[in-house]
Each structure stands twice: as structure tokens, then as C-alpha cells.
């Protein structure tokens, strides 16, 4: 009788019989990458949210949409009091991805590596990099987050940010030490996108700069400025990465014929996307890029989208007219002579849109993503999110006090200005100014502001200006006091606070 009831599933593997072989470990590693790929599939994507929070863009979106993007933009919850869970999908997705990392890290001993023992430190290093990468996003966005380095169902209170940064530093140090020093050129093309030693070193420097800046510390969990510099100098000296010769070639919409391609030599680390997302559970696509498209209108080569994060004219004006990065970064409706007819549907219209992450159409207006086989233009966008570029490594090295600081600084600016290059003396102030222009609309500016201290960031972001809501000129105000009140952090999802029985505490100002 009892035999009759002892049935095993036929096609479901379980955690009891998985995590046995190196092949299982690789699948689980891919599962962790897939987790990272999904953290911005729903909710509010960090690459956009950070631009909205910074002085680069406004909230934008459709004129009949809710006011969540305005709430984020203005750090003012009264703008949309019902939006109490705007980042919840991301909160859940981050922890889901961390769970995959934590499970795999915990199973390393269980796997029978056999003759492939050398894979273990590599897989572990990649997994720990992914964990560090996500914790770094989270701790910057929310400040106070539960910290798990092993799976747990417990109701875990928020950790001291120092503890989170200690894990980030430890994971990245491990990754930098255990990943092979394979140069860009010798990495097989089919493996591009996997975490490298260089990515770990660059992210470590980024974490160092942010942590020491935002929290006013001198070291990151024992890592000194000199060590951080040594990591990026190693990237410069040994990685084989370099700048792509023209800035516009980095961005598909700015270089239709001459795009340098994904995983080009400048890409240190990217979150990779492709067009196979569907509504049956596949989330492989860049689901957030559609937010950047012009509201309801395409204009070759720029695709239509939801009109989110309209670019602040201040950013356009910050560029020198000779700076090739201006036209490669920003779509100017007037400068490109685009006949934009749908101001009525666009909120916070400024006349400028993001070009670096613009959805694209062909000359007939058909979505390039759909032509490649995507289900639709909303979830089918496939442009990778280039998180760390070699230019960033050069500028970080300069900022960390490299002996070659001026040369690194010049190298970035020479590419931007070409024959119009005029040397500017390297300095912290000039580097930060250059970083805004170089990395505009790439999700970096906001953190560069915050690491100068909340009051400085607040003063730069605060603004009273005029935008067009549904074609009507409307005053837009971002007040410094709101940014200072929230310390630049975002709201913890209210549902998660409720689920935790208030073990989780809301951030100030929310």
C-alpha cells in the first residue's frame, strides 16, 4: 500500500539531488546571473531611478500616469501618497537573486568537483561578485537593508550599512584574488559577460569611493585608498581593456552603422539582455529601456516609449558645443529637427530624451527588437546595461590619486573632444564634472553626487524650473530639504515592513 503512495516527481529536480556535479554548479551560477538580469524587470529600474533622482532628468512619464516618478524625483512622498511600494518588485527581485547566490555559495562543499577542482574558486568568485554587486545597489538605494549571507526565512532586521559594506568588500576582494587574470582579448567571445577579475577590481574601487564619500570614512572594511588605487591600476595595466575610439560608437542609437557592439573592449561589466523575454516567464530582456522612449512617438532611429525620465535641459547645456558626447548622449528634439506631436501625452516635457538607452526603430518605424524576434517593444529591448566602462576605471584611478592622473583624465577628454581637445588640469572638482558629462544617463551621476555628501548633492539637485505637462508650462520644484531629510535614500516597501511586523523600519522622510 505505502509503495503506491511513494511517488517521486518525474521531471522536477529537487535541491536534494541537484548541486552534485560541476555541471550543476555551472547551471546554478547561470541561475545567479539570471537573477541579476531580473532585478529591474519590474518595479522601478535603478538605471532610471538614479537618473530621476539626480539632476540629469526629471520624472517624466505619461501625462495621465500616476505621480510615482515625480515622488522619486522630488523625494516627496506627498506627491503620490498611494505609491508606498514603488520599489517593492525590485526589493523582492534583489533578494530572490541573492538567495540564488547564497544557496550556491553554501553548496560549494557539497559539489563533487572531481578533476575540475579549479572551477570552484572561479564559480565562487563570480557568485560572490554578483552578490556584492547587488548588495551595493541595495545599500546605496535603501541604506538600511537586511543582510543575509546564507539563506534564511527569519524575520531579519536591517543591518548596519558598515556590515553590508564589509560583505561587499570581502566578496570583491575574494573575486579579485580568485579570478584568473585573463586579458580582454584572450577571453573567449562566447564567455563575454561573465564576471572578470577586472570587473571585481573596478567595482571595488567604485565601492571604496562611494562608501568613503557618503559615509565620510577613510577605509572600506580595511581597504585603503592606496589599495583601491592599486586595483584600478591593475585593470589599466593588465586587463587589455581600452577606450573605444569614438564615444558615439558606444551607443546603438547614436551610431547605427558604426556601433562598437556589445562586450566591446571598453565594457568592464555589463548586465546582459537579449530579446527573448516573453509573458511565459522568460525575463531576458531590458524591460526598463522602453521607459526612456519618447511618449507615443517614434522618429527614426528612436523608438517610442513611455516618456520617462525626461532629460533636464541643464544637462544639455552643461556640455561644450565641441564635446562629441552631447549629441551621442542626448536626443534634442529641436537640434535633430524631430516633429514631436505628442506633447499632450507627455509629462514634464523638456525637449530632450536619453539617446544612450533609446529604444530603436527602423526607417518604417518598426521596432528593431520586434524585427529580431521580440514579443513586443516593451519587454523585447535587448541593449545591455553597461555598468562599468573602462573610462570609469581611468577616472577612478585619477580620482584615487594615480601618478598618471592627468594622463588618464586627458585620455577620456581627448576622445570626447577629438581635435578640439584642450587640456584641463586634473582635480577632484574637474573629475566629478567630467564624470557627469562622460557618464550622463548611465545611472552613475546620482551616486557621484551623493558621495560628495548629502548637503552638496541636495544643493546641486534642488531646482525650480518650468516643464511642460501635457503641453502646458508648469512649474517644477525639487527642494533641497527633502533630499536632506531622506539622506538621498529611498523608501522601504511598506508591504515588506508590514510583513515583517515592523521589524523593518522605514527610512526618514518616507
Amino acid at each position: 500500500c505505502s509503495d503506491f503512495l511513494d511517488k517521486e516527481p518525474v521531471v522536477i529536480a529537487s535541491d536534494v539531488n541537484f548541486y552534485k556535479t560541476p555541471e550543476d554548479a555551472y547551471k546554478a551560477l547561470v541561475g545567479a546571473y539570471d537573477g541579476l538580469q531580473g532585478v529591474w524587470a519590474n518595479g522601478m529600474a535603478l538605471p532610471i531611478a538614479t537618473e530621476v533622482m539626480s539632476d540629469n532628468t526629471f520624472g517624466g512619464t505619461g501625462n495621465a500616469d500616476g505621480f510615482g516618478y515625480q515622488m522619486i524625483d522630488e523625494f516627496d512622498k506627498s506627491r503620490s501618497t498611494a505609491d508606498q511600494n514603488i520599489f517593492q518588485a525590485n526589493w523582492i527581485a534583489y533578494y530572490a537573486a541573492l538567495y540564488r547566490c547564497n544557496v550556491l555559495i553554501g553548496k560549494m562543499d557539497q559539489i563533487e568537483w572531481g578533476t575540475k577542482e579549479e572551477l570552484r574558486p572561479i564559480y565562487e568568485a563570480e557568485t560572490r561578485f554578483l552578490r556584492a554587486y547587488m548588495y551595493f545597489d541595495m545599500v546605496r538605494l535603501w541604506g538600511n537593508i537586511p543582510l543575509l549571507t546564507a539563506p534564511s526565512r527569519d524575520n531579519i532586521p536591517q543591518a548596519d550599512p558598515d556590515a553590508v559594506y564589509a560583505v561587499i568588500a570581502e566578496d570583491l576582494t575574494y573575486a579579485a584574488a580568485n579570478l584568473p587574470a585573463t586579458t580582454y582579448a584572450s577571453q573567449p567571445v562566447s564567455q563575454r559577460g561573465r564576471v572578470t577579475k577586472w570587473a571585481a577590481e573596478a567595482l571595488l574601487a567604485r565601492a571604496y569611493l562611494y562608501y568613503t564619500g557618503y559615509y565620510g570614512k577613510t577605509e572600506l572594511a580595511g581597504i585603503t585608498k592606496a589599495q583601491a588605487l592599486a586595483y584600478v591600476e591593475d585593470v589599466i595595466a593588465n586587463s587589455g581593456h581600452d577606450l573605444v575610439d569614438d564615444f558615439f560608437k558606444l551607443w546603438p542609437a547614436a551610431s547605427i552603422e558604426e556601433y562598437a557592439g556589445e562586450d566591446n573592449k571598453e565594457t568592464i561589466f555589463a548586465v546582459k539582455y537579449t530579446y527573448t523575454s516573453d509573458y511565459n516567464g522568460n525575463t531576458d530582456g531590458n524591460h526598463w529601456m522602453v521607459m526612456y522612449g519618447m511618449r507615443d512617438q517614434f522618429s527614426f532611429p528612436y523608438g517610442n516609449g513611455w516618456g520617462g525620465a525626461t532629460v533636464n535641459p541643464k544637462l544639455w547645456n552643461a556640455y561644450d558645443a565641441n564635446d562629441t558626447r552631447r549629441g551621442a548622449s542626448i536626443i534634442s528634439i529641436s537640434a535633430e529637427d524631430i516633429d514631436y506631436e505628442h506633447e499632450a501625452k507627455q509629462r514634464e516635457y523638456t525637449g530632450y530624451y536619453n539617446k544612450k538607452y533609446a529604444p530603436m526603430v527602423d526607417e518604417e518605424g518598426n521596432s528593431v527588437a520586434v524585427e529580431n524576434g521580440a514579443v513586443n517593444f516593451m519587454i523585447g529591448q535587448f541593449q545591455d546595461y553597461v555598468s562599468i566602462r573602462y573610462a570609469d576605471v581611468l577616472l577612478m584611478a585619477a580620482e584615487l590619486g594615480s601618478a598618471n592622473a592627468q594622463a588618464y583624465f586627458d585620455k577620456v577628454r581627448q576622445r570626447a573632444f577629438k581635435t578640439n581637445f584642450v587640456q584641463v588640469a586634473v582635480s577632484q572638482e574637474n573629475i566629478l564634472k567630467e564624470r557627469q558629462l562622460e557618464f550622463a544617463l548611465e545611472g552613475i551621476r546620482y551616486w557621484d553626487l551623493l558621495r560628495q555628501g548629502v548637503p552638496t548633492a541636495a544643493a546641486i539637485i534642488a531646482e525650480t524650473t518650468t516643464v511642460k505637462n501635457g503641453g502646458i508650462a508648469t512649474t517644477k520644484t525639487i527642494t533641497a530639504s527633502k533630499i536632506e531629510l531622506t539622506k538621498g535614500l529611498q523608501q522601504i516597501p511598506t508591504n515588506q515592513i508590514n510583513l515583517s511586523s515592523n521589524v523593518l523600519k522605514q527610512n526618514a522622510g518616507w
Partner: protein
Amino acid sequence: QQVITGTIRDVTGASMPGVNVLIKGTASGTSTDVEGKFSVQAQPDDVLVISFIGYQTREITVGQQTTIDVSLEEDLTTLGEVVVVGYGTQKKVLNTGANLQVKGEDISKLSTTNALQALQGQTPGVQISSLSGQPGSGMRVVIRGMGTNNGSGPLYVVDGVLTGDINYLNPNDIESITVLKDAASAAIYGSQSANGVILVTTKGASKGKSHITFDSFIGVQNVARKVDMLDAQEYATIMNEAAVNSNKLPYFTNDEIAALGKGTDWMDEMFVDNASTQNYSLSASGNSENSWYSTSIGYTLQEGVVGGRSLSNYERYNFRINSEHKLYKDIVKVGQNLTLSYVKNKGVGVGNQYNNSLRGAFNTSPFVPMYDAEGNYFDNSNSEWNNGEANPYATMVYGNQNNNLSQKVLGNLFAEISPLKSVKFRSTLGLEYNTHESNSFTPEYKLSIYTFNDVSRASQSMGRYTSLQWDNLLTYGFDVKEHHFDVMAGSSAIQIRALGLSATNASLIFNNLEQAWISTAMNRDGTRITPLTGGPDDDVLENRLSFFGRLNYNLGETYLFNATFRADGSSKFASNQRWGYFPSVSAGWVISNEDFLAATSAWMNSLKIRASWGQVGNQRVRSFQYIAPIQFSNVNYSFGDKEGTLTGGGYPNRLPNPALGWETSEQTNIGFDAKFLSGKLNVNFDWYMKKTKDLIIAAPILATAGADEPFINGGDVTNKGIEVALAYTSSVGELNYTVSVNGAYNQNKVGVIPNADGIIHGQTNQLFDNSGEFYRMENGRPIGYFWGLKTDGLFQTEEEVNNYLSGEGKKIQPDAQPGDVRYVDRNNDGEINDQDRTLIGNPNPDLTYGFSISANYKGFDLSIQANGVAGNQIVQSYRNMANPLGNYTSAILDRWHGPGSSNKIPRVTEDNRNWTTFSDLYIHDGDFLRISNITLGYDLARVAPKGLLGQARLYASVLNAFTFTKYEGMDPEVGYGIDTRENGVLVDAMSQGVDLGFYPRTRTYLIGLNVKF
């Protein structure tokens, strides 16, 4: 002494074998042979008593007659004398549970294509509503209130075979349907019966020698009520007003508006007139001394009113053969019941807001033309007004090219051995075998900048489901003096397996549905061949083993006692949680048999008091929840430079819960059955309290746990209520009539939900794009209640906005303007947010009721059937509030447009600010009373030469004749709720009454014919 011979027939003229013919006051007599003939010796002053179960007994004084031909009439008062119970039958008078039997002919005479629809209003405490009006669509059946979020449909048992629905059945094949409502009646089905049990018996042996019957009807269906949308002029006016209210200039001048005309009425475009419905059913039955058989074939066609036959259509072929044979005297019998159905259907979207074809008609402006100059569907991509809106009719046509076939075989083979008259052993092998196959086609098209398809696609899927069931039953009845005992012991083993395969590919050779198959797709790019899945479905895989027993006891048919016990073991659960035990007891007292009530016999003919208690279970959860599965599907990353190249991965996607066990429902029932006025008035009354405990719920867990929540046991729901049924049967001259009324009151309350916030949250994005949560399951509230802001009219003036202050003097809605909604700040913190949300509507009706009138006079018959609900609310969301340019229903003409103009419908704005937050503006009362059937018939056999025809009844019916309701949608009977299925298994089904553009039930006029030979 003389020899009396004769023939006994029923009213249709068919001969009746086995009828008892006794000489009154003696034990001598005979019974009729297979031709209904008898021969008996009698004295002239003897009285012959001619009796047959279910027929009125006739007494005839012999006198000088030597030939006595008698026709027996069915006995309406003893109808249902024997009732179907779980694993058997029982004399009704001895039954101590709360159950209700509906005869097959009461179902088939309502001319519905779906047997459950015919049950509406006939059974108190059983709420039946359409999931949609699309032909072939299922029904939501809730017995005694929703007790779980985990799928509240009952268990169906057809001829002893456990199954999930009876949509496939030809209503003409049904002998009876019995609804087991209380736990004591249902507990014999243990873990399957927490939501009640519906027992269906298909037609068996006929009375009389042999019958051929032919039943058919043919009719036309139309939409009973359409929603009135704004025409082009009204729409332009409202758009102008919304622009002005949003500080913009109006879009149209008065002259432009005057020139607009009416524009396209999308409601008219979506519906067809006079959609056909047809049904033909031919059956034959007969019996001989050792065998009987009953067989039928049937065909049903119902066209949909939305889009018509090419888009929404249902065809069903049925075949049935039931027979029984005596192999050896009365000791060994074998037999089988077998029903086959073959269903071909097509359907339009009737699901959520993204999969609801009608919804486009509510949201598309009347400016969009139906056709362009060449007669093609209009491509709106170059519209200056709104290039994002698309012809909703064309969207429906292009998006719903599908053919679906399903086949079902359900039946059993049995052998019965009865070595002694009182001992019976029966072994039954049951089978349910379903297959489905479907293909769909998406052509290349372009209708707007968002509604287009660049590459043609074909999708194909196939699957099968098999459930094998082996039951063994031993029954023994014996008497000890006046004490009568019936005992039954049994076992049942069930094995369930399923398998599926589906794929989509692109670039088709042919451009039509009939040739759209995977093999005609030219694309060889792997990323477009998606989804491509196939294999056994572990989620439904189950082996189940059960042991059960029943004891019936009665003392002189006056003191009744009944106990059952069932043990169920299922492979779904971990070995330590595998078994569930489900006991029940019930008792009855037929007080009217007592001497001390003899005085009341003049007006009260019988009175039985019953009480029962039992525990039943629910295990509707996917299998293997106790393990942590590794998910491989949809887990990919795209390493390398080639787009679309995926590397597969895996991760444990769900936390395991080895402690998961059965959901238990405990129910107490007290009731009485009484007959008054010589049996003319029948009264049934029940009070019950049903508490479902240890709900199997996907309890929300903290995100930090990282994986999908495990299913756990926890939480409870209580349903309390009363049910009353009254029936009065009488006659005036040759006019016979029956009036029956029934009603049920139910109160639903969720007890404890075992997570920190005590809430199971509803889903977002359901009412319109980016809409928030609007229903939930929460401690102390009715299940699936509507959760939103309360409103307190509209601000009429600026002053009212400024004076709307919190206790601390803070302006509560500082941004509001006159004409905006005033939300109630329930916690008085000066802010309107989630903390101000509360119960603003209850989708569960307080009262469900029905009544029917039937009468016959000579050859005429008339019946009227009605059903209704009261006390429930409906959420109506027709308009996508994320879109400023969507059309409105004409209700918007009563909007606020100046102080005092309205206190109900807010001003129009382009940002729809008064509608983007869920509030009681969306809530509507769902009370209705529907006259669901009016039928008038006449039996032509009465005027035909005698003996030629048993019956030739011609009738005309109106289905869904009138609906009395204040609800201004198309149909108040909204069975649609936000049901979440994962791999076909319901995982969240707590909501109902959500009208997103509900495919309405049609009004049908039909004529029919019943012929019996």
C-alpha cells in the same frame, strides 16, 4: 375465481414490466412481464392493488371485468423517494443529511447547453454564476459560501467517477443531480469534499419495455443589454472638458463637434444579432429480464454573440451507453456506464484586462472607423487624434484565431456479486481520459502604433489527462428485531497523470488558421520557437488511496443514525503528512411517527428533524509542495556577443514545506423536512456552520527569504447560514401546478491568516494599467473583499477643499479642485494613503434565492424559473484609467461640471486623478433577480391517433427573459474573478464579481420538440 388479464402502461403508453399486482388484503398476486402483461386469479369483489415505485398506486375493484388495462401516473409526492448518496442510494425518509436532488428532466427541460446553468436557482445554498457568457464557458459553483482561496469549486462525481467538472455532459443524459451540502453527507468523499459534492447519475434503465426519444431545440440569441458609450460628438465634448479641466485649450471647436456625427459605435460592432443555438439528442433504452441498456447521441451548437460563429463558437458531440446484465441469476451482475464527448470550440478573450476582447470596445474612441476605403480594417497608426488606439473588432479578429478540440471519456465497468440478498460486493474500474489539442494563428497586421504583428505565427498545443480509479465496496443490510442496520465498507485507489506539449513558431507558409501549424512555419531561428515545452505534468501527478465505511441505523424508520469515516492517503504530501482522516455523524428523528403527534396528522403529514456534524478535506494543491524544486525553465543568461543565444541555468525557486497537509472543513448542520396539507406543501430548512481550517495557502513571506513562498496550512474561513425551500403542489380541476421558492442566507468571515499582517494580498494591475491592489483576504473580513478608499461626495467649491482639514488642521487634499472626489481620511492623519483603505464592498452575496412555477393543463405545460442574489457588490472597471483618451460610458454625462451639478461622478480630467486610486466609485450593488426561463409547451400526442406516439411535445422558451437589477453593466451575474492558475492549477481564487467588460449571458428565444415512441 376468474382469470383477470391486462396490460400496465405509463402515461406515455409504454408498457411497464415488473409492476406489482396484488389482491388487497392478501399476499397473493403477481407482477407484470416484460411486455407489461399480467394474469391473476381474483373474485369479483376483490380489489387489485397495482403499484410501482415512483408511481401512484391504483386500486381497482374487479367486478365483472376480465381485462383490466391500467395506466399508471408518476407519483409527484413520492418523487425522490430514493436519493443518491455517496457510494449508494438511500430511502429519502431515512436520510439525515442536507442534500438536494434535482431530476434530470427538470434540468433538460430548461434547454441549457450546460447542466449547471440549469441548476441555477433550484438549489438553496448553491450559488452558480457564469464565468463568462462565452459558449462553453464554465460556471463558478460555490456551495454554502467560499471557504478557501484555493479553488472553491465542488467535487463532481459522475456515475461514481471523481472528476473536476460536468461541462462536457449532455444535459439530456442526466438522470439526477444530487448536491451534498453538509459535511456528514460529503464526508464519505473525505479529502475531496470540503467544497461540497455534486453527484451526477446518467440515465439508466427505463421503465417500460423500450423507448426511443428525440429531443431538440433551436433558437436565436441576442445580447440582452449593451452598454451605452459616448458617440463622437459626446466624446469630443467630454475630451474638451477634460482638457479645459487640465488647464489646456479645448481640442475641438463647436463647429468641429457639430460636424463629427455619431462615429463608430463599437458596442454594435462587437456583437452579432441572432446567434444560433441548437441541440439534438436521440436516445434509446430498453430492458429484458436479464439486461437493460440506455444509450444516446447528442449534438449541441452554440454560437457566441461576441464576434459570431467564426470567433466564438461551441460544438459538442455526445455519446453515451449504459447497460447492466445479469450473468448468473440475481447473484452476479456486470455493467458499464460510458460517456464520450467531443468538443470543438473557438473563443475570444474573456480573461483579464489584457486578454478581454470586449474591453477594447469600451476604450476605443468613436473616431476610429471600422474600415478604410479599400474595405480593410482601419489602420489607425497615422491618426492625429490617438495613433495608439486600434479598431477593437479587428484586434479581436486578429488576436483570436484559434481552434480547440477536446475529447473526454468518462465511465466505469463494474461487477457486482450478491451471494445473499442482503450482501453485495461491487468492484468498479473508473476512468476519466481527457485530451485536448489546439492551434492558433496570428496573421501579420497593423492597426495602430501599438497593435501590430510583423511576423505571422502559429501556436500548437496538445495534452492528455488520465485518472484511473478502482473502487471496491461491500455492503450488508440486516435487521435485529425492529433495528435495521446497513453497513458499507470500501476502498478506492486513484492514479492521476497528465502530459502536455506546446510550441509556437513564426513565418508561416499559409495565411489562415486552418493551415497554421508548426509544420507550416518556415522560421528556423531558435529564439522564435517559443514556448517549446513538453513533458509529464508533475504538478498534478498523484496516487491516492482511500478506505471508508458507513453505518446506517434506524429504529422503525423513526430514529435514524448514520456515521461515516474515511481515511485518505495521497502522494502529494510528504510521507509523514500523507494521511487524512474524515469522520462524520448524523442523526434524525421522524417525529411525525410518534403517537404524541398523531393529533397533528390532519395538517402535518410528516416531520423529520436532522442534525449532523462532520469533517471534510481539501487537497487542491499542486503535488510535491514538500520538496524544493529546481527551476530550469525560463532561467537563462545571454553570454557572448550573439543576441538571442541563451545559456540555461537553474535555481531552487520555492521553499519546501514538508509539514504541508490537508485542509479541513468542519461543518455542523441542523435542519428539518416537513410536509403539510396532505403532502401538498413541502418545507425544508437547514442551519449550518462551516469552518474551513488549516487552509492551504501560499502565505506571503518576507522577500528576504528569497524564493517563492511555500504552501502552508493556516488560516480559517467561517461560513454560517440558513437555507429554506418551500414547494406547494396542488391542482384545480385538470390544472396541476407547483410553486416552489428557495433561499439561502450566508455570512462569510475570514478568521486568522497566519502571517504578520494577517492578509493575503490580491493582485495588482488587474483593473487597468498600473492599478493597485483592490481585493484581499484578511482577518475578520469576508473572503476577497474589496479594499479601497471611502469617498464622501465631491468637493463643490474651493472653499470646501480648504475646509477639509485633519484634526491637526492640516489640509487633507491640498491639491484637490472643485469636482474632485473627497476621500475619507479614516485615520485622521491628514493624508490619504493605504492606511485609509478599508472594506468598501463584499463580493459574496448575503442571499441567494430562486423560485419556479410550473403548471400543466390538459396537454399544455408552463414553467417559469427565476434566480437571484442580494447583498453583494461588483467592481466595474471598463475604462483604462492610464489612458486619457479612452471612451466613457454615457454615465459620464452626469459628471460634475460646476457647483451642485453632481455629488457622485467627479469632473473629467486628463490624468483621471479621481479614478487612479481604487475607491468606492468603482463599487456597484450586484443584486439582481433574473427570470431565467419561461417555457410553454403543448403535447401534440393528445390530438394524434392513440398509441402512435407516447409524447410529441412542442414548446417555446425564452431564456434569460428579464433581469431586474440596478447594476448598469451588461450582466449582473459576474462570475469572473481574478483567478491565478499556475500550470492549470488554481493557486489564488478568492475574488469574484469583477466586471472588466463581461461577456454577457444572452437572451435566447427557442422552440423545441420532445418526441417519445
